[in-house]
């Protein structure tokens, strides 16, 4: 989805600056720190990702409950089960090699890390390759369209219950992360 009014673009810059500042402050512009998660040395990535996810999830959930946010006005991405599973697998493998994800590659590049620039170049190369091979990839890309599906729909549970489950899972991850830090 492309949003392109002038106030929206200004807002994009400001929100992006806050996002980039916080990623750098947490140390996520450093590939060596980022891959620490995969060798169970440093779970900072998981701590940051899941505390951000839970904060936003609870924020949206309660703002919606209190009538302060119209959920229908928020863009919920469509689910495509098979290509998203395949895409996730390719992405995870690429992440181990790159050491940086698309957002943090910008943080790395902006703070002087040449490996960040290399990851950014790789991303453009990969997307270009995808675009030019699209005719033969489209069958997989467009398969299993399930529309704007949510976990509460899939599990047949009230949203509040799923929000609670995700929160508990995140707390479990935090416990493991803190234990690793204590033992280090």
């Amino acid at each position, binding site marked *: 989805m492309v949003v*392109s009014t002038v106030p929206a673009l200004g807002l*994009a810059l400001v*929100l*992006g600056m806050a996002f*980039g500042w*916080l*990623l*750098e402050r*947490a*140390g996520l*512009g450093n590939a060596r720190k980022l891959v620490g998660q*995969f*060798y169970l040395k440093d779970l900072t990535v998981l*701590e940051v*990702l*899941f*505390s951000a*996810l839970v904060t*936003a999830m609870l924020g*949206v959930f309660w*703002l919606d409950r209190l009538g302060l*946010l119209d959920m229908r006005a928020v863009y919920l*991405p469509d*689910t*495509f*089960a098979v*290509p*998203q*599973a*395949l*895409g996730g697998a*390719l992405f*995870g*493998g*690429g*992440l181990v*090699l*790159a*050491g940086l*994800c*698309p*957002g*943090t590659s910008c943080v790395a*590049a902006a*703070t*002087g*890390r040449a490996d960040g620039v*290399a*990851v950014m*170049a*790789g991303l453009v*190369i990969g*997307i270009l*390759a995808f*675009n*030019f091979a699209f005719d033969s*990839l*489209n069958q*997989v890309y467009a398969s299993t369209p399930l529309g704007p599906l*949510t976990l509460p729909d899939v599990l047949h549970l009230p949203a509040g219950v799923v929000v609670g489950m995700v929160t508990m899972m995140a707390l479990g991850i935090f416990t493991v992360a803190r234990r690793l830090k204590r033992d280090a």
Partner: protein
Amino acid sequence: MTRYTDPYLAGAGIGLVLVAAYLLVGQGLGASGAFASVAAALTAGVAGTARASASPAVAPYLPNGVASPLTDWLVWELAGVAIGAFVSAWRAGRLARTIERGAGVSAPARVMSAVTGGALMGVGAKFARGCTSGQALSGGALLSAGSWIFIVTAFAAGYAAAPLARRLWS
């Protein structure tokens, strides 16, 4: 050099930025979309705008059939990420012209692995319709089923591939 901020504090801050994006713009944060926007402009440049617009993978990035990364929300957001990160690292004394890599890895080998990993992530993010920011974080917080499929498969693949890439980082 300033110490890194507590990860829970930084994470909660990012969560609040995301809520602000939902409230003010009606969509979450993203990163791979900005690269897709730039790549779409390049695709249109090579293949011609008419052919590029005919492809469902490129068309969403060519509003009215015109390549215009400069009017794409995500491109501005990612430019903001770079500015915010630069100012933060500058204030913290963490700006450094360097290549982050494992001790036993040469700089060219690290650059090659970064380009290869980036390309794999680019293809993956296209199939998944987003990356760590757009799917895992922004979609995950809205409990999108596809976002959670992405979170589970990305981390599973990462942990499965990590032992094979150990030499790269040790």
